């Protein structure tokens, strides 16, 4: 099994992508709504990722 070393951003990006795909599929009833909701979840993950990253950077001093 190859060993993989991902950065924090890469790991969080992939996590967001896969989780958003599944959340989009299981929560909505039409394909259009699934696509929009998946994209919305992914956007929220990425915005939160940057926001929390900046909070930690500024909080750390």
């Amino acid at each position: 099994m190859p060993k993989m070393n991902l950065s924090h951003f890469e790991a969080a990006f992939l996590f967001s992508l896969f989780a958003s795909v599944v959340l989009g599929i299981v929560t909505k009833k039409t394909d259009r709504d699934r696509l929009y909701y998946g994209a919305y979840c992914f956007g929220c993950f990425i915005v939160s990722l940057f926001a929390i990253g900046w909070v930690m950077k500024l909080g750390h001093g």
Partner: protein
Amino acid sequence: MATKEIIPDKPQMAPINVWAAPVLIGWIVPGGGHFFLKRPGRGALLLISITLMFSLGLMMRGMMFTPQSGDLLTTVINYGGFIGDLASGALYLMATMFGYSQPDMAGAVHDYGTKFLVTAGLLNILAMVDAYEIAAERKD
């Protein structure tokens, strides 16, 4: 004049023979319940997403939880993590059978790997619930 408010009845649970097969297949193979119910597009997306998440967790040398008891926090974390890992079905069973179960190691990447493994199982639980709803005709 007072009018009676009509409260819709709580939906009855579908008979077990309707949903047991898709839910069980969905546990064993992520997205398998959707394939069984003739939703191959959604099944393929679930299969790819959950399998990739689990595989990345293994490649990052994430830890597989084992049921351990101790103080309350230890018990909740280990049993909860074990249930999350087990929910990945065949992926978890094959990984432990072929010796890919890793001990806990210090490091951010390993920690991400552990979260990827557990989250793959939790996402598979969502997929199983979706398969149940399709089988019970609550959803298309």
